[in-house]
C-alpha cells in the first residue's frame, strides 16, 4: 500500500512538471523592422507639397465634389491634431513643417491618437485617395453619398484603405508642433485646418456651471457651438467653438474670464470652427 501511494504521488509530481503554464509572461514585440501600423513598403519619393496638390486639383475645397488623385504622389506631413479626447473625431489634422500648410485627413476609426500622436511625422501615399470639401474644408478621404440619388462628398476612408496609404516616419516630436496665433486677419481659405491659438478670449454665457457640450444643450444633435464675447470674434455667424458631446471635456464647466484657446481651426462654409483637442488646449489667463 505504501508503495502504491508512493507511485501515486510520483505520478502527481510528474504531471505537475508536465503541466507547465501555456500562458506565461510575454515579451514585448520587437519593432526595429517597422511599426505594425501603416504600410512600411512605402518609399519617400514623388513627394509634393500641399500647395502643389491644391494646384493640381483646383476643386480641392468644393462641396459635393470628389477628385480622385490619380498620380503617384505623396505628402510628408506632421500630425497636429487627433481624437485624443474624442473631439476631433474620425480624422487627423496635419501640417507641413516648412510651409505650415494644413489638411484634414478623414479616417474611419477611433483611437487614431494611439499610433498618430501629435508630433508624429507621416508619409501619405495619395494615389487612389480623393480630395474634396466638406463645408469648404478641404480634406483627403474617399467618396460618400447618403443614398444613390444624393451627391457624394469626400468623407472618412475605411481604415483598411488608410493603413495601406501611410507610413510612420520615426518617433513623435511634439516639440515641433507649435501653434501660430489666430487673429481676424487669418484667411479662411488658406489657413483653415491649421493649429492656432486665440488669445485673451472668453465665452458667452460662461458662468462657472455651463459646460462645453452637455447633452441637454445638444438636444437631438451630438455637438454644441459656443461663441466668443470679444469683438470682432463675437459674430456668431463667423466664429465659434465646436465641441462634440462625446468629448472627454464635454461636461467640464467653461472657465469664466479670459482664456487662450488652442485647437484646429476648421472651416465650415463661411465660418471658423475651433475644435479643441484636449484639456491642455484650454489655458486660463491669470
Amino acid at each position: 500500500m505504501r508503495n502504491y501511494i508512493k507511485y501515486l504521488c510520483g505520478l502527481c509530481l510528474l504531471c505537475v512538471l508536465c503541466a507547465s503554464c501555456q500562458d506565461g509572461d510575454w515579451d514585448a514585440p520587437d519593432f526595429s523592422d517597422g511599426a505594425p501600423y501603416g504600410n512600411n513598403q512605402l518609399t519617400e519619393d514623388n513627394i509634393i507639397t500641399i500647395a502643389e496638390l491644391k494646384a493640381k486639383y483646383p476643386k480641392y475645397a468644393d462641396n459635393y465634389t470628389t477628385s480622385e488623385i490619380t498620380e503617384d504622389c505623396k505628402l510628408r506631413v506632421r500630425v497636429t491634431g487627433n481624437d485624443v479626447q474624442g473631439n476631433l473625431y474620425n480624422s487627423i489634422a496635419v501640417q507641413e513643417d516648412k510651409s505650415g500648410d494644413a489638411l484634414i485627413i478623414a479616417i474611419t476609426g477611433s483611437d487614431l491618437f494611439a499610433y498618430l500622436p501629435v508630433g508624429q511625422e507621416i508619409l501619405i501615399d495619395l494615389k487612389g485617395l480623393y480630395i474634396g470639401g466638406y463645408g469648404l474644408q478641404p480634406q483627403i478621404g474617399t467618396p460618400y453619398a447618403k443614398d444613390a440619388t444624393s451627391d457624394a462628398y469626400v468623407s472618412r476612408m475605411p481604415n483598411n484603405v488608410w493603413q495601406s496609404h501611410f507610413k510612420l516616419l520615426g518617433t513623435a516630436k511634439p516639440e515641433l508642433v507649435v501653434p501660430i496665433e489666430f487673429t481676424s486677419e487669418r484667411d479662411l481659405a488658406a489657413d483653415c485646418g491649421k493649429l492656432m491659438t486665440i488669445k485673451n478670449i472668453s465665452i458667452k454665457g460662461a458662468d462657472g456651471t455651463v459646460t462645453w457640450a452637455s447633452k441637454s444643450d445638444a438636444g437631438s444633435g451630438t455637438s454644441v457651438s459656443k461663441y466668443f464675447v470679444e469683438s470682432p470674434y463675437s459674430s456668431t455667424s463667423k466664429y465659434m467653438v465646436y465641441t462634440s458631446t462625446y468629448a472627454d471635456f464635454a461636461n467640464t464647466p467653461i472657465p469664466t474670464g479670459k482664456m487662450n484657446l488652442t485647437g484646429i481651426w476648421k472651416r465650415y462654409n463661411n465660418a471658423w470652427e475651433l475644435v479643441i483637442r484636449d484639456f491642455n488646449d484650454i489655458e486660463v489667463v491669470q
Partner: protein
Amino acid sequence: MTKKLTLVAMFLGMASLGFAQNAKDTTSEGEQALKQDNAAFVFTESQLGEDDDVTQNVIMVNSNNNVYTSNVGYLFSPARFKFRGYNSRYNDIYFNGVQVNNAENGQFNYSTIGGMNRATNNHIDASGAFETNTFSMANIGGSSNYEFRAGSYAAGHNLTLSACNRNYTARAMYAFGTGMTQKGWAFFGTVGYRWSNMNTAAVEGTFYNSLSYFLTLQKVINERHSLNLATWGNPTERAQQGASTDEAYWLANDYQYNPYWGYQDGKKRASRVVNNYEPTAMLTWDYKINDRMKLTTSLIGKYAMYSASKLNYSGTNPHPDYWKNFPSYNYDVWGGTGTSAELAAWQESYDFWTASKHNRQIDFDKLYFANQQLNATGHDAIYYIERRHNDHLTFNLGSTFDWNINKDSKFQLGLQLGSNKGMHYETMDDLLGAQYFHNRNTYAEGNYAANAPQIYYDLNNKDGLVGKGDRFRYDYNLFVESAKLWATYIRDKGISHNFITAKIGGSGMWRDGKMNNGIFANYIDAQGKSINLSYGKSEKAHFLDGGFKMGTNLNLGGGHALAMGVGYETRAPHANVAFVSPEMNNNFVRDLVNEKIFSTELGYAFNGRWLQMNLTGYFTHSYDGTEWQQFYNDNENSFTYNSLTGVEKNYYGAELGMKFKVTNNFSINLIGTIAEAKYASNTNVTYMLSNSGVEYHDRCLNKDMRESGTPLAAASLGLRYSINGWYFNLNGNYYDRIYLSYSPNMRYQGLMKQNADKSYTVMEQAKSDGGFMLDGSIGKGFRLRHGRYLSLNLMVTNITNNRKLCTGGYEQSRNTTYTTREGQDVNRTYNFQKNPKKFYAQGINGMLNLSYRF
C-alpha cells in the same frame, strides 16, 4: 468478530453502489464507463457556465430508473442539452450527503470534478424531481449525490490513456484502490492530466492544461462508526473560444472561427484564459445507530480560486470581429442598396478578411505599439489584459438521519448548513507594453467634469497607478449564510409507493465593498441623507423559504407502472441576482422576493422482457423570479447592469424513452422530447448605466422569449450490438428549436416606438436552424489472466461532419435603428438584428481510449 466487522464494513462501503447499478442493464462494463467519460468530457466547456455572454451550464441527469433520463445527458451533450430547459441552479449536487452547489449562483460547476472519472463514474445516486433519495428533497431538475467513501471503490489499479481531437488532445489517468482491508482501512486515489496546446486543440486559439487529483481514506472504527476523509482538486489553465457572427464564419470559411486569439511577434496568443483551482476537503462520519437507523454527516471546506482574463480597452474594440471591421458595415447586404463607393468599400474589407488568417485575429503587436506610443506621450495605456477573479471560501455541513421504520415505511430528516465568502475583484494581468495605467472610470469621463470624483473607481486611492497584479475597477465581497431542514416520509401500501417531503430554510446575504467608487461616494438615500453606498458593508437581506412535494408510484402489474407527483415551493433569490450592481454599490435589487415554483409530473413506465419504456409529461410554473445580467450596452456606450424582477416562466413538455431488446445482443433505443420553456409574461426591469450610476425603471417586453442554448425538441434513434466482447453503438440524433439568448435592452418598452394601435413590435428571438448528428462507438474488452482487463474503445461524434448545427449564442445588444434619449435618430448600415453571435457544433471528432485494469 473480525470477519463480521469486515462484512459490515464492506456493506457500508459498497451499499451505495447498489443504487448506481441497474440489474437489467446489459451494457458492458467498458461501455458504461466510457459513456460517463464521454458525457463528462463533452460537457467540459458548457458545464462551466463561465462564458460571459452565454449561459451554457447543463445538468448531468443520470437517473438510472428511467430510459430517457439515463441516456439523455450523454446522447444530447454535443448540442449542450439542458434538461427541460432548466438553468442548472434547479439541479442539486451532493457529495456524501452535503450540498455543494455554488452558494452565490446556485449552480454546480462540473469542471471542479473533471478528470477524476474513476472517482465519479458509477458513484452517482441520481433522482428525478419526484423520486425519493437518501439525501434531500429533490429539486425540480433532479438531485444527485456522489459517493466518495474509499470503501466504495473497487480494489486494484486502473490506467487509462486517451487521444482525441476535442478541447484537449491527450489524457492520462491512473487510479488505485485498496478496497476495504481486514483492518477496516480503505484508500482510493486517482490522478489525471488533460492537455492540448494552441496547435492541437480542436478550436484554434484554445488550449487545455489540467491536472486532477482525488484522494480518499476511510476507517471503519467499529460496527457503528466510520470516518472518511477525502480531498480533491484540479488546477486548470485553459483558453476560451468566443462566439461570432455568421459573416465572420463565412469570411473565415470555418465554423470554429475563434476571435479570442491573435499573433504576437509571430506566436499565437489567447486573449481569454481561465485559471481555476478549487482545493476541497471533506470529512464524513457514518453512524449506524442501530439496524434501522443511521446518521450520515459530512463537513466540506473549499477555497476556490477562479479567474478569467479578457482583452479590454478604453478606446476602439481591438477584436477582429468588431462590427465596424466587417464588409457589411460598409454596404447594406440585406437591402442590397448602396452606392458604388460603398460596394467598393465592402470589397476592400472582404479582400482584407480573406487575404490572411493574420487579418482575422487580434494583432497584439499593434496593441503593444499603441500603448508604448501613448505612454511616451504622457497617456495611459488603452489596451490591456484584465483578470476577473471570483474566489470563494466555503464551508458546508450536511447531516441526514435515515430511519427504516418497518418494511413498508421510512423516514428521513436532514439538515444543510452553509457559509460562503465570495471575493470578487479585478487585477491587471498584462499592460501590453505600457508602463502605467490609472484606476479611472474611462466610461464616465465625458459625463462629468475633468477630475470630478465620479470618474475614479476608488476615492480611497484616487487615480492610483495600476501595475501587473494590482486590483482595480472593483473589489468587493459577498457573504451568504444558509440553513435548511428537510424531511421525507415514504410509505408503501399495496401497489403504491408513496412519499411526501418538505423543507424549510433561511438565508442571509450582504456585500462588503472594498473600493470607494466615486459615483456612489455621496449617494442620496431614500431619506435624503448622503451616504457612501460603495465602500463598506451593505444592509443584510434575510429570506425564509420552504416547500413540499408529494408523489406516488403505482405498480399496476405486468410491468406497468404509473407515477405522479406535485410540488410547491418558494426559493430565496441567490446573491448573484440580489444586487443592482455589486461591482459599484451596496444596493439590493428593488422588489427582491422569493421565487415561487409549482411543479407536477405524470409518468408511465413499462418494464417487460423485450421492451423498457418511460413516457413522462411535466409542467412547471415559476413566478416572482429575479434575473440579473451585465453586458456592454452599445446603444448607451456604457456597461449596463440589468435586473429583471417578477419573472414568470412556464416549462412543460413530454419525454419518451424506449429500449427494445431485440435479442440478447441487439437492442434499439428511442429517446425524444418536445418541450417548451419560456417567459409567461413581460417583466419589470431596472437597469443602471456604469458611466453615470443612473437607474432606469422600465418594462421589458420579453413575454414568450425562450430558454436559450438548448434544443427544446430532440430525438435519438440508437442501435446497440454486442458480441464476443465487442460492442457497437450507432446513434442518430436530431435537434431543433434551439434559441439564442435574447437581449433585454432591445425590448425595453420605454425606448421602443409605439405602433398606431398602441402596441409594440417586439423583435423575434434569434433562433438556430437545428440539425442532425450521427454518433457511434466501437469497443472491445479483453479479459486477461489474473483478473486483469484491457479495453479499447473508439467514439466518434458527428460522423457526418455536420458543422452547421448552431448550438447556442446571443443577440447583440445594439439597435440598427433607434432614437437616443436625446431624440436623435440613428440609422446604421450594419444590421445587428441579423447578426447574432453564435456557437457551432464541432465537426467530426473522436476519442480513442485504452484502459487497463490490474
